[in-house]
């Protein structure tokens, strides 16, 4: 038997938590992800299947919906689906079974690292990081942008809860960028 130990995106045995100036930055390791892209000509069926799976109407451009699964818009007829990894490790397989040939589903579990930020001055932090108008956001927005040259998704649950998804292979760099901005802004 191999004696292997699971490690987080940052390389730790447990998720890292940093707090500064009233904002808490938490590494979130319990997220299963799957991308879902409707195929040309079957957009209607693909969207119906996905809406049933998440139990909500689908998110429009620049939006996210929170339901049984969280689903945010990535591009025309494309969404990313997120669910707790503990209970939905086979998320992509399940969505793929439901969608049949109407959509292309790809597991994204190990492609991303996820950081959750909570606190009441997040806009001050994010205006140093990326051109996302967080001061105008109230919750339910999600967009892809660039943070320190890394393509990241910024997802707003409410004004005090923002999630960043970034490339897992650059988890350390992204964490450094987030923490540096927190220390500079707060």
């Amino acid at each position, binding site marked *: 038997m191999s004696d292997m130990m699971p490690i987080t995106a940052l390389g730790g045995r447990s998720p890292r938590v940093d707090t500064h100036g009233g904002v808490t930055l938490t590494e979130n390791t319990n997220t299963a992800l799957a991308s879902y892209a409707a195929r040309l000509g079957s957009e209607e069926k693909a969207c119906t299947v996905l809406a049933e799976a998440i139990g909500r109407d689908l998110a429009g*451009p620049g939006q996210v919906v929170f339901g049984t699964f969280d689903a945010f818009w990535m591009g025309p007829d494309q969404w990313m689906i997120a669910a707790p990894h503990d209970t939905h490790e086979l998320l992509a397989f399940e969505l793929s079974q439901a969608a049949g040939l109407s959509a292309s589903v790809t597991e994204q579990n190990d492609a991303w690292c996820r950081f959750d930020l909570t606190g009441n001055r997040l806009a001050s932090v994010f205006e140093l990081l990326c051109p996302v108008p967080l001061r105008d956001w109230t919750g339910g927005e999600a967009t892809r942008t660039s943070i320190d040259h890394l393509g990241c998704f910024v997802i707003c649950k409410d004004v005090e809860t923002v999630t960043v998804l970034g490339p897992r292979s650059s988890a350390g760099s992204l964490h450094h960028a987030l923490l540096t901005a927190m220390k500079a802004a707060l």
Partner: protein
Amino acid sequence: MIIDHPLLGPRDSAEFTYLGDASLIHRPDWEAKDAISQFAEYGYQRDNPAGTHRELWFHEQGDRSWLVVTRSTTTHEITQVELARDVARREGRST
């Protein structure tokens, strides 16, 4: 410079990369008898207008959509932004 994305609204141009003239949508037929001269034209010949220019921009650090942006090359004023797929379909490229 701000590009008013048709789906996502105003976005910083730093999120985009520039490809070139929007006529690049019209890739020649490689099986045509005069394909070589068509591709020479397609690959190398460009107008260089001082004024209104239709050009392709890629939202690389965003939703990765291709846009056709109508921009003045002298003032950088942007007068129209459309999804390239809508333009291509309207011009008979793919249906």
